[in-house]
């Protein structure tokens, strides 16, 4: 279903264009030139793994370990510097909710705009419109510009739009903690029903208890490298020990 083969991802930390003065000096003075290698940063190093259909994979690691980069590479937002990624099936990336919401537009208009960005068709959105509205609990605010929404309301709306599809591959970056307690519970149930429906899930989270509960296998990443892949409980416990022990 997903095959990540030897993927490496390089960023140039020195991408910010230098000032005119710096650039000018560097032209003549070799010593002043910041070496290229110094500015290179490998966010992922030779990452390989395979995910089978219907599996729920957790991805854990400290901040900046490369988790989100990995998700972006898999969802096609970034092309890997080296290596290949193969995916089969419709991917629904929930890397950041509400991408492309326009604050000036109303909730109703944003449902269509955001839906279009996520690749839904007009027909599909027309059909599912009521379902989205009902799930988001925002029926009274449909014609209010979302710049007047609270962040919780925006997140609820975004989650409802993103989860209305039944994708074959679902990529989730820490979004189950959206909204109030009631909504959190609802969104967790929604995820569970998707998982039970046979969706392949890649799930990034810092909540080890949720990871243990939801996932079959866990990938532990540190400094862009895979530390361990294995049973959810074993890897999570080991990670916990390493971090706090």
């Amino acid at each position, binding site marked *: 279903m997903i095959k990540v083969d030897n993927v490496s991802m390089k*960023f*140039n930390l020195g*991408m910010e*264009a230098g000032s005119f003065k710096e650039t000018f000096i560097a032209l003549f003075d070799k010593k002043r030139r910041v070496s290229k290698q110094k500015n290179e940063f490998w966010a992922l190093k030779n990452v390989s793994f395979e995910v089978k259909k219907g599996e729920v994979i957790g991805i854990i690691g400290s901040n900046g370990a490369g988790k989100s980069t990995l998700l*972006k590479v898999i*969802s*096609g*937002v*970034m*092309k890997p510097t080296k290596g290949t990624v193969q995916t089969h099936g419709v991917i629904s*990336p929930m*890397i*950041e909710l509400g*991408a*492309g919401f*326009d604050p*000036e*537009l109303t909730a109703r*208009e944003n449902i*269509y*705009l955001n839906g*279009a*960005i*996520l*690749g*839904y*068709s*007009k027909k599909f959105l027309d059909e599912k419109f009521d379902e989205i509205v009902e799930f988001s609990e925002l029926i009274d605010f449909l014609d209010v510009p979302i710049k007047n929404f609270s962040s919780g309301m925006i997140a609820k709306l975004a989650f409802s739009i993103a989860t209305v599809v039944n994708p074959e591959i679902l990529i989730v970056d820490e979004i189950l903690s959206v909204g109030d307690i009631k909504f959190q519970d609802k969104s967790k149930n929604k995820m569970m029903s998707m998982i039970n429906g046979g969706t392949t899930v890649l799930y990034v989270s810092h909540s080890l208890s949720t990871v243990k509960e939801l996932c079959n296998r866990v990938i532990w990443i540190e400094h862009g490298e895979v530390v361990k892949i294995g049973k959810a409980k074993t890897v999570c416990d080991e990670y916990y020990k390493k971090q706090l022990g």
Partner: protein
Amino acid sequence: MTAIKNILGNFKRYSFLMKQLIVRDFKVKYKRSVLGVLWSILQPILMMTVMAIVFSQMFKFKVEGTNFLVYLMTGIIMFNYFSEASNLAMSSVVVNFSLINKVYIPKYIFPFAKCLFVGINFLLTLIPWLGIIVLSYFGLGQYTCHINIWYLLLPYVFICLFLFTLGIGLITACISVFLRDMFYIYGIILIIWNYMTPVFYSIEILPESLQTIFKLNPLYLYLTGARSIVLASARPSFTQMGMMLAYGVGTLIIGLLLFKKKQDKFIYYV
């Protein structure tokens, strides 16, 4: 063959998104204004009135044997389309970075949607423009512009202009991702380009040698094409029409190739 099929499939798949982006632009543009979309027609009317007064009354510009008002307006609306569309297209990729960074969307959609959005606005400005032409029958601007069969060729001219604009938009969008200075540079380029295009003067007032150079300007070709139809009721020559298409398609192809080659690197720079 499969490549073409792929492109068309992609196009169909994202046409809804394109529509949504254009609708968004319209909604945001006229949010909280009382007159709303009416401004799309009203604004060019007012602008044309000002320009007409400035150039024909204050500066006493004229072009021999033609209705100067129609001459001026044709130039203005076409050049404004080019400058506004290519300018918006240039910033479209950078502005939408937060989207590009989160969801996979073919990036050419942003410049394309901008060129279409301004294009729709352009079509609306044709209404007051036609109004002036009709008024010329009633004595506005000395010479009458006769509506004639060659008007059917105007869409051809406009489509070529659109292709050219889109091509330039793709190129500038691409450059501006890597070099933000482009925003300022292009602003200056547009001003120079405006003066080098005979929008409010006739190319005949220039010295012979300069004329040859100025005639290489694609915008000159598009403006002249439309003007010969509207002012002289004459069909542009086949060479001219061929060149219009060649400039349009050629620029678009260069733009697309450059964009395609560089688009995977955008993400590191925006």
